[in-house]
Structure formats: C-alpha cells, structure tokens
C-alpha cells in the first residue's frame, strides 16, 4: 500500500511539478514618446523595474522608470567630452550603471542617469558584461580568439581575475558572432553560455569550474566545424550564409534564482526562437518545446521582455517600440 502511495505521489509530482511548456503575455510598457527611439536593441531591468534601453540607430542609452516614463538620456559628455559616443550595451551593476562603447571603452553612470566617470585606462570593453556584488564586474571577452576568457573586474574595469573554458574548435564563431551570455545567481555562482552550443558551464564565485549543464535539444542543428575558421574578409559573406539553417545559442538569462533560460535562435526559412530551461543544478525543466517568433531581450524575476513596433500613425510617424512582457507556465 505504501509503495502504491509513493508511486502515486511521484507520478502526481512529475505531472504537476515545475515543468514549463507555454509562454503567455502578461502586459505591456509604452515608452515615453518625448524621446525619439528607433529600436530597443538591448534592454536591462533593475530590482525596482527601471528599464535601461540601448538604441543603436539613435546611438542612445535611455533610462525609463517601470511605467515607461523617461528618467534620463545618458550622456557622457559632461564627464568625458570629446569621446566618440557609440554605445552598444548598458547594464545595471551594483549601485551604478555601466555602458560599453564601440570604441572599446566604457563609462559609469549613477542609477539616476547622471555621469559618474570613465573606466580605468586598462579596461577593454568585453562583448558582454554584468554587475557582481561588491561593486565588481564580470566580463565575457571574446574578441581575441587566442585569449577568450571571463574576467572579474573592479568597478573601474581593472582585472582582478581571469578564468573560463572556451571551445577552441569554435573560437572564430564565438569571436565574430553575437551570442552566448553570462549570468550570476544569488550565491555568486557564474554561468557561461557560448554561441556555438546550448551547454552551460558553471563556475563558483572564485571562477573555479563546477560542472556543465544542459544538452542539445532534438531540434538543435549543430555546427560540424567553425564556419569562420581561417577566412579572410572576402570569404566572410560565404561564411555568414553557412550559419543560416543552423541553431545558435544567442543568450542566457536567469529566469529566477534557481532557473536558467537559454535562448536558441533557429533559421529554417523563418527565424524562430526556443527557450530551454534548466535548474541551476542541471535538471531540464521543459519537456516540451517553448517556441516563439519574437526575440527575447531580457528576463528578470520570471518576467520575459520583448519589444514590438506599433504601426505607423496617420500623420506618417511611427511611435516608439513597445515593451511586451510574458511569462511561462
């Protein structure tokens, strides 16, 4: 009798246990029309729900509150005039905002958007960055194919520690193609994803390797070899064509403190995205495919953020993109 009861509990818990399968809309944020915004290329959200938007076309970083009201357009000219401003990523760090610039350097701002200062002269902007506790920073450096690494830096970008495992076989793909990601949980464990594969590498807060998490889903179309291996500029466009039809691990998020979310981009004629969810211990949490036709910009506290462009108004203007929020069940 006890055995039957135990079996019953196991079956019921596996059915009703945490097993995500569907994405559904929960709300929208309409951004202040006072500011002209072309695209939301990158998005970050802080603990209060404030939004940090990066727009490549207008070359601006804009801080909005959780309702979409404008707080400030970040402007480094007061703290570092004369620098070519071409930002590509802004992130909330521990008590400040870090902005990465295309001319590979960085700037710091207060959380109200006022200028705080520039980075250390030794700082080279990584491809991805995020804030760690103690006002530190974690960088994902992939530009130099021979020295791809993760680094823990102080708040000015001075390197404290370098570590990280990167697959040599796909170093050129990782260097050239936007993808992969880094997240940190509340215990300080670091998770790294590379664009070449949907597997996550887990490290402790000191950078010591713990284990690999994840596996290739059945729909995932892998690269056999690095498409950018040993090519010159002339072959670059041919290499880019080889990427079509393959799957790419384009981003990594922390869905909640115990759940990791991998964003996978697929192209089979039409571009689609899949989410693969894993617990921080490595358990796969979605037995069914979670598929969308829109890109995901950010995930914070179980809220998934994406952006949509409303139609043109009758006077020939297009309103600012709208942030749509989703969740999983």
């Amino acid at each position: 009798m006890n055995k039957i009861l135990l079996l019953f509990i196991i079956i019921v818990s596996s059915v009703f246990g945490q097993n995500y399968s569907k994405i559904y809309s929960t709300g929208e944020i309409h951004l202040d029309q006072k500011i002209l915004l072309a695209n939301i290329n990158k998005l970050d959200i802080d603990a209060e729900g404030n939004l940090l938007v990066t727009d490549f076309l207008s070359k601006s970083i804009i801080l909005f509150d959780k309702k979409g009201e404008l707080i400030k357009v970040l402007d480094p000219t007061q703290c570092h005039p004369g620098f070519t401003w071409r930002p590509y990523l802004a992130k909330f760090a521990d008590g400040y905002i870090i902005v990465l610039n295309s001319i590979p350097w960085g700037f710091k701002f207060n959380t109200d958007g006022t200028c705080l200062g520039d980075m250390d002269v030794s700082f080279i902007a990584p491809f991805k960055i995020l804030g760690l506790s103690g006002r530190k920073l974690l960088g994902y450096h992939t530009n130099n194919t021979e020295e791809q690494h993760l680094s823990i830096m102080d708040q000015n970008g001075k390197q404290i520690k370098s570590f990280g495992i990167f697959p040599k076989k796909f170093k050129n793909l990782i260097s050239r193609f936007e993808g992969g990601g880094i997240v940190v949980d509340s215990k300080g464990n670091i998770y790294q994803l590379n664009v070449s594969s949907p597997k996550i590498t887990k490290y402790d807060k000191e950078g010591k390797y713990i284990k690999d998490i994840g596996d290739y889903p059945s729909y995932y179309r892998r690269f056999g070899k690095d498409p950018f291996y040993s090519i010159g500029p002339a072959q670059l466009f041919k290499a880019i064509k080889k990427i079509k039809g393959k799957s790419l691990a384009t981003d990594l998020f922390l869905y909640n403190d115990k759940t990791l979310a991998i964003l996978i981009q697929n192209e089979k004629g039409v571009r689609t995205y899949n989410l693969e969810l894993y617990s921080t211990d490595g358990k796969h949490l979605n037995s069914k495919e979670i598929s969308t036709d829109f890109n995901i910009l950010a995930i914070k506290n179980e809220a998934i953020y994406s952006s949509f462009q409303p139609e043109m108004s009758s006077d020939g203007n297009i309103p600012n993109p709208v942030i749509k929020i989703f969740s999983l069940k």
Partner: protein
Amino acid sequence: MKLKRYLISILLVILLLLTFFNINRIVSDRSKVSHSIQEIRDVYNKYSLTFNKKKFPIITVKNVVDTSLNFKTIFKDSTIVIILAKTGCSPCQLRELKNLSALKKQKNTFKIVAILNEDDQFTALKLKKIAKINFPFYYSHDNNITVFNTFKKYPLVCLISKQRVEQALLPIPMDKEYSLKFYNKL
C-alpha cells in the same frame, strides 16, 4: 685627461645626432598621418568622380508615409538624392540625413529626396524619425539602383540635373569635414 675630453665630445655628438634623428622621425610621422587622411579623401574623390554624367535610373519608389504618393525617379530640375541601404554605414547615413536636413533649412530652394534601396518601410520610417528629416523619403529595392551604385557603398549623395549626375559624394566614415565641404560647394 685629453682622452676623457675626446670621449665626452664623441658622446655629445652622438647624443645630438640621436636627438635630430628623433625629431625628424616625429615630424615625418605626423606628416604621414596627415597624408593618410588626404590620401583617403583623394581615393573617395576619385570614386565620386566616376558618377559624374552618369544617368540616374528611372524606377518607381514608394513613399514611406503614403503609398498614393509613389514617385518615379525622373529628375529634370536640380535635385539632391541620397541613397541608403540597411548594409550601409549606419552612422554615416544618419549624419548625412541630418546634414541634408540642415541644408534644407538653410536653403529651402534645394530639392532633396531620400531613397532607401530596400523593400522595408519600417527601416525607412525609423531613419526618418531619428534623423528628423524634412524632405520626402522613399523606399524600394530595385536592382537598377544597386547597379548604378558601382561601389555598393552607402550612403551615396548625388546632385542630379536632367537625369544625369552633376556631382556625387561618397561620405567617409568619421570624416564630417569632407561631407561639409561638399555641401558648402553646392
């Protein structure tokens, strides 16, 4: 004693020679840098000159706001046409659109038209929005435009009269002065 003096003199001479050598190296490096900016401009001037007298293709382009205002690219009177593309130098495109908006404000007699060589209304609308342009904006992907733009560099700015290019500008990334010189000559 005499030997010491000779040695000191020789050392001084070597020091002086090294100093002159360094000064010469620094001066010639500076002139090399300024030459290279001029060299780039010379190359772009050469490219731009190849468009002179070229016939601009006649195609139908769609107005980004109102498709009933579709337009056939027949330019009898002097018109400045800026051709853009998604693959173009994005900061250059925005910069030139803003330059042309400023030109239109200064000299309202200029006819200016922007054409995005892509079948993408939203990209055109976003460029129009961010650059705050005050002249008509059209879009259409047409191979005749692609073929016309021999170097496939975007943006391309042409002054057209009687369907032929009179002057052309291929903007240089990060060189605002080069573009401003072109507009000042118009």
